[in-house]
């Protein structure tokens, strides 16, 4: 039994450990460790294509996570006021959104967007006063929308859980002490759910930053970091790829740990 457990964990984490190890490889090959060096990190960060992809990823992750945190929190607050049945339905749909495979989300988002563009673009062309109407197409916007939509479900669930554990008496006490509903929200509800909102934001950011599958379908001509890595691998796994992977890994772990810490905070500071 013990050996089995060790084997499972080795199978899970050994490849990751190897990637990290080989990112510090002095040699040119991914299969043979010839000495310690950080040269590949330098190479990776001076590669203009890679830096461009990294910037894209950071921009998309930040924007989609902000969108998700805002809309997801609003949705969670709204769901508090609906009937039990509607609530159960929405909870099920949120759960479904999270377990649906990325491929399905990717394809369906792509199909939906292409259909939407096919309908909207002729209208735009018709209505636009000049000869060169803007044309909606896949790109930043579509990745942000796809990531934001998925992450919104995540944020709604996390914030919803926090809200349901919020003491209703606190809201009543605030109201009893002459605070209008808006003041009550600002000075009582928001501080209480803030850790969940921040955790939701961080998880949404991590999801977007790491995501390859959904982005691959809806990216159009844009390149995100995971897409760049995928494309480079076709030219062979180099220690440079390992260096990028290690950076992404570290960033993700830090963000997830931050999110966990936020969720575990019982008494948020004012």
């Amino acid at each position, binding site marked *: 039994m013990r050996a089995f457990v060790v084997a499972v964990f080795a199978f899970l984490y050994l490849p990751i450990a190897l990637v990290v190890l080989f990112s510090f490889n002095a040699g040119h090959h991914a299969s043979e460790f010839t000495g310690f060096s950080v040269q590949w990190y330098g190479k990776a960060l001076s590669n203009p294509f890679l830096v461009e992809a990294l910037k894209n990823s950071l921009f998309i992750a930040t924007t989609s996570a902000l969108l998700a945190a805002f809309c997801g929190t609003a949705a969670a607050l709204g769901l508090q006021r609906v009937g039990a049945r509607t609530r159960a339905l929405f909870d099920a749909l949120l759960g479904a959104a999270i377990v649906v495979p990325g491929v399905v989300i990717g394809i369906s988002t792509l199909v939906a967007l292409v259909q939407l563009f096919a309908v909207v673009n002729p209208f735009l062309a018709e209505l636009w006063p000049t000869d060169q109407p803007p044309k909606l197409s896949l790109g930043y916007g579509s990745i942000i929308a796809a990531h934001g939509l998925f992450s919104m479900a995540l944020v709604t669930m996390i914030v919803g859980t926090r809200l349901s554990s919020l*003491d209703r*008496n*606190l809201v*009543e*006490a*605030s*109201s*009893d*002490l*002459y*605070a*209008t509903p808006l*003041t009550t929200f600002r*000075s*009582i509800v928001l*501080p*209480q759910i803030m850790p969940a909102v921040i955790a939701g934001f961080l998880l949404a950011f991590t999801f977007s930053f790491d995501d390859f599958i959904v982005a691959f379908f809806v990216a159009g001509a844009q390149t995100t970091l995971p897409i760049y890595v995928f494309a480079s691998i076709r030219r062979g796994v180099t220690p440079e790829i390992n260096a990028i992977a290690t950076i992404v890994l570290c960033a993700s772990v830090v963000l997830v740990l931050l999110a966990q810490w936020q969720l575990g905070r019982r*008494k*948020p*500071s*004012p």
Partner: protein
Amino acid sequence: MTAVPDIEFRAVTKRYGAVTAVSGIDLAIPPSAFVALLGPSGCGKTTCLRMIGGFEQPSEGQVLIRGRDMAGTPPYRRPVNMVFQQYALFPHLDVEENISYGLRQARPRLSSRQISQRAGEALSMVQLAGYGRRKIHELSGGQQQRVALARALVNKPAVLLLDEPLAALDKKLRTDMQIELQNLQREIGITFVLVTHDQEEALSMSDFVCVMNGGRVVQLGQPSEIYDEPANLFVADFVGKTNLLSGKVAGLSGGLVDVALADGTVIAARKRVPLSRGEAVSVSLRPESLSLSAPGGGSLKGIVRNRIFLGSTAEYAIEVQGIGSLLAKADHVIGQGNLFKPGEPVAIGFAAGAPLAFPHTKNNGTNQREDQNAEIVS
């Protein structure tokens, strides 16, 4: 002209779907009084309090605060403040921020000097001067209770509402807080409305007790009135300990009725409502109105089953053939070895006028207890 009552209920009914929590209550709470709403759980007392606070709207009727109809007025526009059962202190604010929360909402705004001065006064009023910067979770239950009180009183409300405020405290602390609440109410002079299911608390603290049952007000009166002259069987049974003996009306003489008990003994009892010959009644006899003596005299004969010595008093459970178990309470005088022992036969007497007879209707609203005769629990 009588003064405008601080709180007035006019034919107030509250329904939740098919359930009627409060039905047709008329109630006027006089100014500057300490009033307890007393009743078993589910009697509608908390609903009444929440309708004063504005957290519930009456389905029918009106709730008036100082003569103003409160229909449609949200909690944050009502001149009342509430002390919540679990205190509901804001965990992310410190003690002073909690207390000044209400003051900060005042329009026109109060200066921050005024706010901190009044918060400081409120803190000293509840004997927590110097605790302003503490976090809520650093305080004990009793201290949290005081903060909740200060947070409500600092706003100088017309009426202070207290929802079972002492339920979470241990017995010693509860007694201290009872005295402190009484003192506070006298000092400040505003109306306190206290909701409680603890009859001892209601009797000991308040100027008026409003006994509720099944969504209705059963009796409103001073504590001694409630105890000595209960309006019906429910009040007699719920407030204080009592022995309830069932019997039949055997005769009517003047203001009194003769009741034949189950064992055939006939006793004279006072009545609160007209009774007719042959009617089934319950006679309430307070444990302290029973006197025990050596066999020979008395109205009833029994055998001591249990003795609970309480220091200044002793309580006896006495088995009376044909009637059941009776609870008697006797003062204990030091040096006088007048304690009866379990197994000893005793004679039971009572002062004329002590027994009170009530019609034994099904609808008397008593908590359906198995032992209708006596309780030995303290």
